């Protein structure tokens, strides 16, 4: 096994942390200007749309990038984990008997907390089960073997939902009231604000976890060199399982957000969401959690800009063309790290 990927989490930015911050702000301003020029007076709303959808992609992309970082597997089932997560929250909310907005702030808070903890927990466990049975036995098999099982798991998840739950669109209760908040010059829906804040909080928590805790350190060391980590007393199996738990849990959170924001879910949801999120992870530099988040937002902006200028059907082509260009000119992704050469 080659010395694989660079550490999860922390970007090595000893000299460039400020550059990234300045670059991000400059990019946001540029994106805003581009959107505003085409949006016919709706620039601010479109900018918020882009941030919101970008936040969802970012949450999914984190799982891709973490798994890739630690076992170099493109986990094609991850998009479907997100999809199943949206069904778990659909099941929970409809079982609890909600069918619309909850106006009591206290109850809303409790239901949201329960919903997120439950869905994230369930999906985390699902992720660990998938890892245990479909990927772990293949850790030393040829590289394509787990990729094929990942595809197989993706089929299985889709079909379990399709046959067992619904073969069409289900409607999820949108429990957050549809109110618009006015903060200074900014008008933003409660739901959009909630999603953006939630994504940022989850991502910050993840960074802290990976950067500051023992388990996070175990994950980083396993990603750098599994054997060395093992020699240093890291329990590899537990660490990888934990990675799947966290990554899938974040996808579960994205699934809840999907239900709250769009109010629907469908068993085919995972494919394109997964594909775009995966692209986001690569754009940002796969194996790099900050990069995955950045990539998610970039894809959100690309989609919104394409829609604003009336080229919505081309957004997929634009996203993938951007991907090819980034990889050709900056093969490690925007914030990238060295990918392991295929061993």
């Amino acid at each position: 096994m080659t010395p694989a990927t660079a550490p999860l989490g922390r970007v090595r930015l000893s000299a460039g942390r400020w550059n990234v911050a300045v670059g991000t702000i400059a990019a946001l301003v540029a994106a805003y200007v581009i959107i505003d020029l085409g949006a016919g007076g709706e620039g601010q709303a479109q900018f918020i749309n882009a941030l919101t959808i970008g936040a969802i992609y970012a949450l999914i992309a984190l799982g891709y990038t973490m798994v890739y970082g630690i076992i170099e597997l493109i986990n094609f089932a991850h998009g479907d984990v997100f999809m199943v997560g949206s069904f778990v929250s659909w099941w929970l909310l409809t079982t609890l008997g909600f069918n619309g907005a909850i106006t009591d702030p206290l109850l809303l808070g409790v239901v949201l907390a329960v919903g997120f903890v439950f869905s994230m927990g369930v999906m985390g466990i699902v992720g660990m089960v998938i890892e245990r049975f479909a990927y772990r036995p293949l850790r030393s098999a040829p590289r394509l073997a787990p990729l094929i099982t990942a595809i197989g798991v993706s089929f299985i998840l889709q079909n379990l939902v399709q046959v067992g739950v619904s073969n069409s669109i289900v409607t999820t209760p949108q429990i957050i009231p549809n109110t618009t908040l006015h903060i200074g010059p900014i008008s933003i829906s409660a739901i959009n604000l909630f999603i953006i804040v939630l994504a940022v909080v989850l991502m910050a928590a993840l960074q802290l976890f990976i950067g500051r805790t023992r388990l996070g350190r175990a994950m980083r060391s396993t990603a750098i060199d599994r054997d060395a980590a093992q020699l240093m007393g890291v329990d590899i199996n537990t660490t990888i399982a934990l990675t799947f738990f966290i990554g899938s849990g974040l996808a579960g959170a994205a699934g809840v957000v999907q239900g709250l924001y769009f109010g629907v879910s469908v068993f085919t949801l995972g494919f394109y969401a997964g594909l775009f999120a995966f692209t986001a992870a690569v754009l940002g530099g796969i194996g790099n959690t900050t990069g995955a988040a950045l990539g998610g937002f970039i894809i959100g902006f690309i989609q919104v800009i394409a829609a604003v200028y009336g080229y919505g059907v081309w957004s997929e082509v634009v996203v993938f063309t951007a991907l090819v260009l980034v990889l050709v000119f900056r093969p490690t992704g925007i914030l990238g790290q060295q990918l392991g050469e295929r061993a």
Partner: protein
Amino acid sequence: MKYARVGASLAVIAVVASACSGSTASPAASAAASGAAGGAAINVKVGIELPMSGGEAPNGVPTANGVALAIDQVKVPGFNVTISQQDDAVNGVHNPQQGAKNMQTLANDPTVLFVVGPFNSNVGQAEIPVGNAAGLMQCSPANTYPGLTKEWGGVSPTTLRPTHPDKIAYVRVATTDDLQGAAGADIAFNIAKAKTAYVADDTQTYGKGLADVFATDFAKLGGTVAKRDSIPGSTTDFTSYVTALKSFNPDYVYYGGVTTSGIGLFRKQMAQQGLQTIPFGGGDGISDGSAATKSSFLQIAGPAGDQNTYSTVAATHDIPNPGALQAAYKAKFGTDPGAYSAAGYACTQVFLQALQAVAASAGSDLATLREAVRAYVADPSHSYDTVLGKFSFDANGDTTQHIISYYGYDATTQDWKFLQQRDFTAKPLF
């Protein structure tokens, strides 16, 4: 043609269902008569060629059940009709290659005299040449893409019939999209009194066809198309399109497509952004049941989104005894019929009536019978009494029933409410 019109559609069923006893041969009782009438019954089959598995099972299965119900209820003396079931879904998605192969399988079985299917128009494009070469008549319950039967977009339908350009071996009971698009424009301009419209489609054959016709006809009526957009069906995020729509400030929004492409969601997101007062229209792809029907447009759009919505259905509304088919279907299969169950039933009725008509002259040779059935159905002078009403097929193989029913949302029943119907043969838009 519809990509996927999922879910049972009470509205459509109410429209299309009619007395099963209205068909020529009377049910059940005649089964006994047949034995007495002509000695040993001839074993023949009707092929069903639909997507039956995976995500498209909701399209194919209820339609195939409609065929099975018709076979069950309507007997032709002297014949023992059974079903040869084919599935054109591979890995859960309709597949033209599999469709063409199934059609060959059916054509190679001499006892198959007629085929009901396909569901998807690109499968139809692959199957029509096969049926044409084999002289095997096929009746699609669901294809609405005009190009399958008539010149469309500069392509002649004879390119689909290279073997025998003059022999029709494909008919359909659904009215083509060009009329529904015209009906949509009629509603927007004359009922909703809109002057400017935002027109979108889901990039699929059915949706794009509808939206294109709508845009052309709406402009011809004197309206202005503020924006013509296409939205990929792979997303559930329509927010940026809806926000963009706001800046055009249209009087009307027309969206060509099907509920599974997310049209209900588009309407719901319009409501979330406070745009539910703008009237919204679509074709029969969104006319798929009341707000209580699972996964229907009205359910997904939600109470706010349902306001001011219109849809069209390519069938007549005035049918006596509309509940009979639904009741019989439910008794046999335990569920409500799907959107195309009645169309599948009607296709089968066309076959059975043709078979009865040619039985005396064609004798018992299967090849002769197959060609006789094909020639009978292709002949525009014949007409059929079906659950969809009385109609015949024109020289292209299209139904002569050019009636479009208009529906609007009714808040008290939370369902589509019949507004009026327009016969485009008697009263064309232009």
